[in-house]
């Protein structure tokens, strides 16, 4: 699965304003609402579900990366967005470091395979230091879109 299959390019947030775990999740979900990928009426429920998932164990998987996610009946296909925080946000990450790169995913409840393929793609690209560095340096949504397209075209190897 490629980024272009599930990342909403109208919802990218190259300059996150949030400074806490809950607020950054809200900011990312709001972006998906504004871009029309998530219904406004589902917003609060999705944020609650993502926070509940975080309580089971942080999705801050190290290397400055967090992948908050949930299943929700409000989406018919997997959808996600990307956010970047220059300062980093305390996300209770496994390695104790702040998270700077966020991939937020909302998937339909009955599609575990799609969720796994999205995680596979995200984790494969994140293992590449160049990809991470360029993503952290992104200034605009277009910068991120271009980077994701290059990743989709295998510019960063595996």
């Amino acid at each position, binding site marked *: 699965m490629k980024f272009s299959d599930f990342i909403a390019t109208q919802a990218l947030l190259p300059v996150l304003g949030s400074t806490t775990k809950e607020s950054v999740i809200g900011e990312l979900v709001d972006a998906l609402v504004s871009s029309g990928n998530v219904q406004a009426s589902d917003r609060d429920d999705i944020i609650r579900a993502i926070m509940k998932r975080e309580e089971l164990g942080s999705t801050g*998987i*190290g290397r400055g990366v967090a992948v908050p996610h949930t299943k929700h009946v409000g989406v018919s296909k997997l959808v996600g967005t990307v956010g970047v925080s220059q300062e980093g946000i305390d996300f209770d990450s496994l390695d104790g470091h702040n998270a700077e790169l966020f991939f937020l995913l909302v998937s339909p409840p009955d599609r575990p395979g799609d969720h*796994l393929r999205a995680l596979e793609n995200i*984790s*494969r690209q*994140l293992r590449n230091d160049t990809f991470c560095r360029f993503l952290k340096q992104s200034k605009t949504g277009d910068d991120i879109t271009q980077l994701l397209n290059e990743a989709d075209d295998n510019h960063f190897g595996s």
Partner: protein
Amino acid sequence: MSQLFSTATVVVSNSQGLHMRPANLLVTAAGKFASNVTIVREGQSVDCKSILGILTLGAVQGCQLDLRAEGPDANSAIETIVDLFQRGFDEPTE
């Protein structure tokens, strides 16, 4: 210290596959052993102590994986990790 080598083949039995929570359990379990533990899927080999590595396997339910451990506690490492797979990471198998 003696270097042992141990292997096993497992199948992903939980319906959600190797998503983040099982991957985390594997990393935590493998991290308790001194041995190097790798998971191999169709020739792709990843470090069982790396969550990013495990997630790149994209292993769905039914997927067959080979486990390899090398080090002083290789046998117990494999035993512990096989047990996690056999319990389906305590998730539903449907």
